[in-house]
Structure formats: structure tokens, C-alpha cells
């Protein structure tokens, strides 16, 4: 099974290193606005949510593209844009429910997460592990264990176990 870029907003520290390394890697410059991942913040509530293409199973971007320029990459499972076919109609930008596709105001082109060919850089750089690259089984187990730990703390208190 292919791995999935999994987001855990509770762990995000809002440092935006993911945005800088994404733009530095793909565009060779640093510009968070041109990164394919963006940390959405509600500063006064302390909520930080990294938003990136979800590499949907039934991608709306693929369905809506009139040039069939968005296709699944067999190796990584990510949806890739074929720039030879893309005409910049921006329908994919409009239809993605996650804002997963960037419109680059300078080039007029669209860009999206391509999982860096299978070794996503944002995941490598994310120390708090708010971004992880895991297969589905691992994701399920981790979420369940994390939730179970909260129960376990509570149970320990109730049963007065040290």
C-alpha cells in the first residue's frame, strides 16, 4: 500500500519550515506563498492546521480537468500535473475542496504537492511530527493508541495506579 502524507494539527508548532523547504526544493527560492503546503493559523486561538493536497482516491481535480492533465503517479500515489497538457484554466483550483492546488500569480501556472517523488521534504523537516508519511495501517494504529493513552491516563487516576 502506498504511503500517505498524514497531518496531525495538534502537534503543529506553526513554524512554517514546511512551507520554506517546499518552495526552496521545488522553486529554488523561499516563498511560503508559492509552497504547495500552507499552515493556516488562528493565532488568537492557538490553532495551526497545515493544509496540503489530500491525494484523494477520487480526485475532483482529475475529473474536472478538461485537458486530462492531472494523473495518478503509479509509484507514489500522488496526483501529478502534466505541464505539457495544462492550459492554466484553473478549474482544478476552483473545485478542490481543500485548496490543495496553488495558483502561482506570477507564472500563471498551477502547482500541487507531488510528495517530492516519494520522500516528502516537509515530513523530513517537521520535528514535532505534525506531518508524517505513513501507510494506512500505521495511521490507524497511531491514532487509536494516542486516543487510548488519554483513556489510560484517566483510568490510572481512577484506579489510583502510579
Amino acid at each position, binding site marked *: 500500500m502506498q504511503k500517505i502524507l498524514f497531518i496531525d494539527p495538534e502537534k503543529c508548532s506553526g513554524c512554517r*519550515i514546511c512551507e520554506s*523547504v517546499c518552495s526552496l526544493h521545488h522553486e529554488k527560492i523561499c516563498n511560503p506563498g508559492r509552497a504547495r503546503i500552507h499552515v493556516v493559523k488562528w493565532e488568537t486561538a*492557538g490553532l495551526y492546521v497545515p493544509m496540503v493536497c489530500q491525494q484523494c482516491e477520487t480526485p475532483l481535480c482529475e475529473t474536472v480537468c478538461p485537458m486530462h492533465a492531472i494523473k495518478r503517479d503509479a509509484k507514489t500515489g500522488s496526483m501529478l500535473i502534466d505541464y505539457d497538457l495544462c492550459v492554466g484554466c484553473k478549474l482544478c483550483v476552483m473545485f478542490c475542496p481543500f485548496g490543495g492546488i496553488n495558483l502561482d500569480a506570477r507564472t500563471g501556472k498551477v502547482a500541487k504537492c507531488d510528495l517530492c517523488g516519494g520522500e516528502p521534504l516537509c515530513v523530513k523537516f517537521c520535528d514535532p511530527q505534525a506531518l508524517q508519511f505513513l501507510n494506512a495501517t500505521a495511521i490507524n494504529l497511531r491514532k487509536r493508541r494516542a486516543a487510548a493513552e488519554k483513556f489510560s491516563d484517566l483510568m490510572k487516576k481512577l484506579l489510583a495506579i502510579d
Partner: protein
Amino acid sequence: MSLLQDQISHFVAPPGPAQNPWFSKGVADETMVWKRRIAFIDLTTKKIVAKPIPRQVRQLYLGGRGIDMYLLYNHVKPKVDPLSSENVIFVGTGLLCGVPALGSGRCDIAAKSPLTGCVGDSNIGGFFGPELRLAGFDHLVISGRAEKPAYLWTSDGSIEIRDAGHLWGKDTFETQEMIRDDNKDEEVKCLAIGVAGENLVRFANIRSGMKNSAGRTGMGCVMGSKNLKAIAVRGTTDIEFSHPDDLLDYCKKMNDMIMNTRWARAQSKWGTLIIYSNTNTTGLIRTRNFQLNRHEEGEDLEPENMDRYTIGMSGCYGCAVHCRHRYVLREGPHAPIFAEGPEYTSLGAFGTMVDCKKMETVLIANHLVNKYGLDTLETGGLIAWAMELYEKGIINEKDTTGLKLEWGEEEAIFELIRQIAHRERFGNLLADGFKTVIAKIGKGSDYYAIQVKGMSNLHSDERPTPSFALGIATSTRGADHLRSRPAIDLYGLPEELLEEIYGAPVSSDYTSYEGKSRMVWWQELLYAVTDAIGVCKFQTVFCAVHAPNWEEFRRLIQLATGMEFSKAQLMEVGERIYTIERMFNLREGFSRKDDALPERYFKEPTTIGFPVVRGKTIDRDRFEKMLDEYYALHGWDENGFPKKETLERLGLDKEPSHMVGEEE
């Protein structure tokens, strides 16, 4: 075309990838950092001029605090009143701003300080710096005074002066939210003052985000004196680096190196509060202003007591350590509070120095000072001093206009913070800072003030640590722990290692005087360069001996900008920055006699703590000898004046040289 439009057209590149140098892939040549502009904004005439930053200035001063200090010396005439329109505010991003490592987004703000009359300078983290650089500006020079409350709106290549009437009177949180709403953009970053800055409290700070502050020396007061409520920025242009792929690899290496250490792990979990564990246990903490050197009842202030309030850890731009708590206070008369912090400094300001025993007191006070835009340290330091004067009967309830300033009285502290911010009653007196208040109260109140050059010291008790004591006496901005604090002195490192780092023997005993002047001198140069490149001190030798310093800085500068510096050349940049700061202070009338410690350091021995720190004072003769050695290391004479050969070597004999100004 207007002058401003002329500047913009030079600056914002036309669209189209083919001709557009903004997005050429591959290695950009070393000139790309030269694209960043310096903007001169005259609030009186409303004239705005943007200029390139000369390459020579970059090579001599790098950026951030380096260039700001150069500009301070050149653009602020001697003896101006810091609250007059003749003072100038300098805002500067670091040379390495934008690099995804070492918390590279730090920004330096400078002016002549209304608190001390000497170099005013403060460093701020968070996200303002990168946004300013993304908008195409690395430096802002703000002079004159706006007729009515105003704020600067900066966007790609352009700066406007906008009306801030509706923002005046708002706290630092509301101000930023309203500016975002006005511009319908949640990504706008702001530097803002609160009511304290508007009321010209001499230690008012400048705030950004929930907690980031340019805290010290009253830079918020200078903004207030110019009727400048905020500087807002939104940037979407590219930041190019010379060697982007190698830079990425090196950044990964840096971040991993740091996050694999115990101290970074501890800081990422407990924040800067972890420092308190060590220093208070040992007995290096001011308690009851200066009466004790350990807070014996401060258990609740220890880091694990944050667990019940914290909801996560936040990080500044480009920082893997994320050392800042986000916390919620749900119960009690001051709830609900959502805030960020507190830092080690606030633990002292509203905990140990004022003899408060609860973490909750610190959390509430921290939020209040952030809201009003007050320097947490100065506020706490002045309140602690006032409490000691009250205890000793030098001031009474009449002087404090009814406030019972008893040790640990948290409601009195919260009320006094509010009074200071609004310049009401007793707060109005304290709002002018130590120099003015000491002169007004008299009655020997001077003796109890723990301040140097008019600025409060941190809650650290330096009587057992000569290196720390020398550092606060010689700091160019007044009593300050960030100009040189050689924290690694507390680690008892092997003397061979210390000699390797500092270039000559330094004692591994933190109570010793041997070699400590060299330690302080070396750290001053390192931190000057740290602030000039805009990275976070917590990811340097400030915290740990094998942490990034000269070699890592050299490599980063080379990969990011293409500029080559040897270690010796980089140290020379540090010397140049520190010496030009010294020159500014000397020009304002400061001299050796101001590089002094409060009398209590010499007269009152420490009484508690671990045996090795008990019974300690600073030995006056040995202090003076350290000062002589320190001046000699800097190439200054016995009065602390730079010698002719030093000025020539550093190229400072031509100052003021006006290499960058509106006129050229």
C-alpha cells in the same frame, strides 16, 4: 511618475517566467541579496524613498542589528531628545532571513533609547521579519513624526502611510486583528504598540503575534512618540538564495544537530522555564528584589507546573525547537485567558523578584504586559524595587496612591501594571523608568535599584558569577543578559575545551574571575553577528558548547548569499558592530564610570543557595581588573574609548560615513 512609483517600477519585476529573474531555477548569482531595499520614511513630510543597500554595507555589517547600529550612528544626531521627532527608528531583518533553520526570522529594531539615553535596540522573533523581506524590504528608517495616529502599510515593493485613528487606544491583540480585517488578509503581519507606547511609557515595547516582543529599551515608546501605531506588512515576492539545494541539505543537518541534544529537547517541551530549575536550585535568582538569591517558596514556578495550563508549543519562523507555550487559564477572576509564554524572564519579573509563589500569577501578569505592550522585565524590575522601598518605609501608601505594595500581593501587581500602562497615579511615576523615578523619590532609593545605565537587570543574581556580572555592566544597551551572557560558564566545561573556544585560558569554575573578560568579549562578538544575521540565540553557543557558532554561520552565509567570510573576518564584523555601539554611547556622554554594577553587588553577600554560591560579593578590585582586560581585548583604552588603531582597523575612523542615505 512619482518618486515612489519610480521606485516600485524598478523593484517589482514584470510577469512572465522567461525574462523574470525572480524565478529562475538553479543557482542565482551572489547579487540576489542585493535586490532587497532599504526604505526611508519621513512621517512629517510623508516622503518615502526606497534604495538598494550598498554591497559594501553588507560586507561590513551584514544586516539586522549590524546595519541598524551603523544607521543609528549615522542618522541620529548626538544629544537629541529620544522622544522628539529627531529620533529615528530602524527596523532590520537579518541577513539570513528566510532560511529554514536556526529560527532565522528575527528582526532588529533600534533607536536612541528614551529609557537610558544610550543605544536602544531590541530583537523580535515570530513572523514579521520574513514577511518584510518577502515584501522586498530588509530595512526601514522611520524619521519625523506623524501629525495624527498612523500606521505603515507595506506590500510588495510599496509603502503607504495610513490613518490609524480607529486603532489608537486598542491593545496589541486587537490592533493586529483590526489591521488584518481592514485589509481582508489573515496573513498580514504587524509590529504594534499598545496603550503603553501611546502613553509614552519609557519602557513600552513593540509586539507582534500573541507574544513576540521587541521588549527592551523602550522602542515602543519611540514609536508612540512618532504617533506610529503599527507597521503592517504583507509580502509575496521570492527570497532567493545562492545555493538553494546545498542550503536545504545544510539546514537539515543544522536542525538535526540541534534537535538531537538534550537541551533543545528540554526547551521544546518546557520552554525557557527549564533554565529556572537549574539556576534557582543553585541559588542564582534574585528574590525580593535583591534581598535573597534563591526563591525558597518557588516550587510552583518550576516547569512541570505549566503542564496543567499548556495546550501546545509554538515556534517562530524557521525554528525546529518551538520553545513557546500556548496556555489557557480557565478559572479564577481573570479567566478566561488564552496567551503565549511565559518566558524565563517573566518567571522572574512576576514570580521571584516580587516574591509571588504561584505560576498562575505569572501567567496573568504575562498576559497583561503583552496586552498593554510593556517590557515584562522592566515592569517586574521596577515593581520589585518599589516593593522593597515600601518594605523599608522609603515610600508609603500615600506615595503609592493607596496601593499596598507588599511582597507577593498579586492584585496590587496587576493593578500597578495597569496603572503604568495608562500612566495613572503611582504607575505614572514608575512609567518613566529608574533614572527619573530615583531622582524624584531620592531618600537613598538609588541604593536599592538593580539597574545599569537606567535599565533593569534580569532576575539573575550575578554575585556568584563574575562573567555574568561583567556582562551586564558592559552591555551597550544597559543591564542586559542578551548582549553577552556566557551561560555555558555554568556547565563546568573542561578547560581544554574552553581554551579551544575562547582562544586563551578560561577557568571552568563559574565563581572564578580568571579568563572571564575574554569570555564576555567573545560572546559579545558572537551575539552581535547572531543578531546581524537574524538567527535565534537559543540555537547558538548561548545554550550549549557545540551549538552553531562561527563555522556554521560562515557556511550559512556562503550558501545563502554567496558572500565569503573567514572566521576572523566574521569576528571582525562582530567587533565593528559592538564598537560602533560603544561609539554611539560615548558620543552621548557615557564613559567607564557607567560600566558599573549596583553597589549592593559589592556590599551585600549572598546568603543562601548551595554552599559554593553563599557569601559571595563581587570583588571591586577584581571587577575593575576584568574591565581593564575587557577594554584591552576590544582595542579600547583604559577609559573604554576605542584606540585610533582599532578605529582604523575596523574602518570606523571614517564614521559617520553615510554610505546609505536618501540623498545618494
